């Protein structure tokens, strides 16, 4: 007898095959449909916006060494870099300060648009919202930025949050104001 013994397949084996297959399929369905994410009781306040206004030149005097290292026709008394203003975002709900963030324009030269994207989970119901987005007169190192100051934006109003719904406060830079979306509940016809 050289070939390995191949056990015969009795009906019990078929029953075992079916049972094991059924168990594996049950596991597959279960993991494929794992309960996740119940409907929240809270509402969400979402802030979003994009700011490109406020391009300024920040200049400083060239150092004698810098001047000496350049050919005479390239020597400039001042070195200037253009950049965008930084902003400070303040969010207060019902008198409680939820955010007080400095928003620096991204990019090596700080000349890329600032994107605001924030979410706050809050109890459903009525709230007093105070939102301020003000240009900051200093750069990241604390040096004052001279140049025409871009506008600041403010919103003070009552808002109503619904459970599981998002209220979006969207900055429209062109119109210079915040728009509010999603204040109505999902059930509102």
């Amino acid at each position, binding site marked *: *007898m*050289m070939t390995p013994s191949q056990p015969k397949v009795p009906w019990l084996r078929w029953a075992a095959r079916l049972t094991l297959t059924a168990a594996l399929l049950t596991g597959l*369905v279960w993991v494929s449909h794992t309960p996740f*994410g119940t409907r929240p009781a809270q509402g969400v306040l979402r802030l979003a916006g994009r700011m490109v206004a406020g391009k300024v030149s920040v200049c400083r005097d060239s150092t004698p060494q810098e001047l000496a290292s350049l050919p005479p026709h390239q020597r400039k008394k001042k070195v200037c870099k253009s950049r965008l203003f930084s902003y400070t975002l303040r969010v207060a709900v019902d008198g409680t300060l939820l955010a007080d963030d400095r928003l620096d324009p991204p990019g090596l030269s700080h000349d890329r*648009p600032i994107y605001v994207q924030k979410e706050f989970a809050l109890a459903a119901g009525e709230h007093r919202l105070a939102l301020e987005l003000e240009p900051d007169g200093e750069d990241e190192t604390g040096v004052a930025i001279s140049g025409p100051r871009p506008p600041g934006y403010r919103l003070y109003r009552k808002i109503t949050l619904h459970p599981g719904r998002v209220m*979006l406060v969207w900055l429209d830079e062109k119109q210079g104001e915040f728009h509010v979306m999603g204040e109505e509940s999902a059930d509102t016809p």
Partner: protein
Amino acid sequence: MPKHNPATGPNRATRTIAQAITWLDKGFSRVYGAGANPLYHTGPLAIWMLLVAVITGVYLVFFYELSHPFESVAWLQSQPVWGRWIRALHRYSSDGAVVLTTLHVIRMFVQGRRWGPRMMAWLSGGLLLAALLLVGWTGFVMVWDGQGQLIAVAGARLLDSLPLFTEPVGRGFVKPELIGPSFFFINLFLHLALPLAMTGLLWWHTIRLSRPGWFPPRLLMWWSLGALTLLSVAAPPGLAGKADLLGVPSPGEVDLFYNFWLLAGAVVSPGWQMALWVGLWLALMAVPWLSRPWPAARRPESWVDQRHCDGCLQCYLDCPYNAIRMVPPPSEGVGQSPGRQKDHDVAWVETRLCVSCGICSASCSPMVIGPPGRTGRDQWHQAAALAKKAASLDHRPAIAVILCANALSPGERAALTGPDRLGWQVDCSGEIHPQTVAYLLAHGLDGVLVAACPPAGCQNREGSRYLEERLSGRRDPGQKAKVDPLRVDLQWAESGDLPRLKAAMAGFETRLRELESPSKPKRGHP
């Protein structure tokens, strides 16, 4: 990760996982039969699942509308046979692909198939896994229901934690008007292009193998397809409400096979999540370097004594890893018997592809190829020593017990051998030269019992199958060896099979005693 030394064996954790796998293998083999054990065919089965997903996906895409993604899926969902069930089959076969790929990775890892010549398969496998998960991500986003919204927004947060994008990806999801057909077009494009890229990756994945098993055994294909079809009819996935960017996504349930990463979102920030997943993937990709054995502990690759190679091609045909080439014979003087210039090509081992399985040792009639110390000639010397021992035995029948190191644990191997059962351990049963077995039987041994891994479970892919074919004279050099089939007992064995093997041994001894009795023919071929 500790480097493992084949001489001392894998570390404890790997051994524990290996034991668990053996236990599962045995259980599944008992139920489905070793030939149709899905655990032995995880790679090919994953391909089969992907193929089912591709075929059902091609059908579904005809109904998909970029301008109304959710509505088009909802319409499909309302059509039972040609909508809901096909969609379910698409989903469950994709889930199956993830399960099987995960099992495949674990298997390859614990079997040590992860470094050296296997490195390319490992790295392409890592890319395949990443591509598979990304295809899943785009698939769930396509539906644009609660689950789609949840993973789209969470995925955007992960991406935004990287300092890569000047405009945040998540900005696209802050209000409904920003998501439109162009987003769904890019998503659909990725959902179709990634599987195409996976086909190329799969080709790369198996390029180093001879005769890669792209498809599982037929029985397994139909069984798995039937089971998934039944499941699709009995429990098709539902559809959460339409995505609503002004609502907090709460799908109620998610598919954790693909969206397991959401779980980390409850605990850590997107930046840490990104670091975790990218770190884990990089660790997977680094496994071939981190876990390879120290050079001194690696088994040496095969070599050929080209002077005596008769150019029969058998080793070239048998090598499961495409590591043997036929090359023009060396010019006279260099590795050449003096005065004789060969008129045929000779075998040459490409060492960077050789995994030292030893299968070529048993392919070679003149016994001039194989890993050092394990060629047919080396085996012959060992056989001679064994035969000498057998001659000094009082006990009859004298049996040589050849044991594959991959099939049984050291304790089990020890339990099967003893003073009157002469044990011989081999690294893979595929290296057992049929002439060695014939030699043993001709030089004092009454029988030879071989315990080898079941063919589908052979860690060197084709070793057990070749062994069986060679011993039964169906594969060269087995035809020449003419092993007496009555005196050889080949047992497919896995760890835990000791009681069965002991019973088989007792039965074999009885048979051999009967063969020795005067009324029975002594030796020969029936």
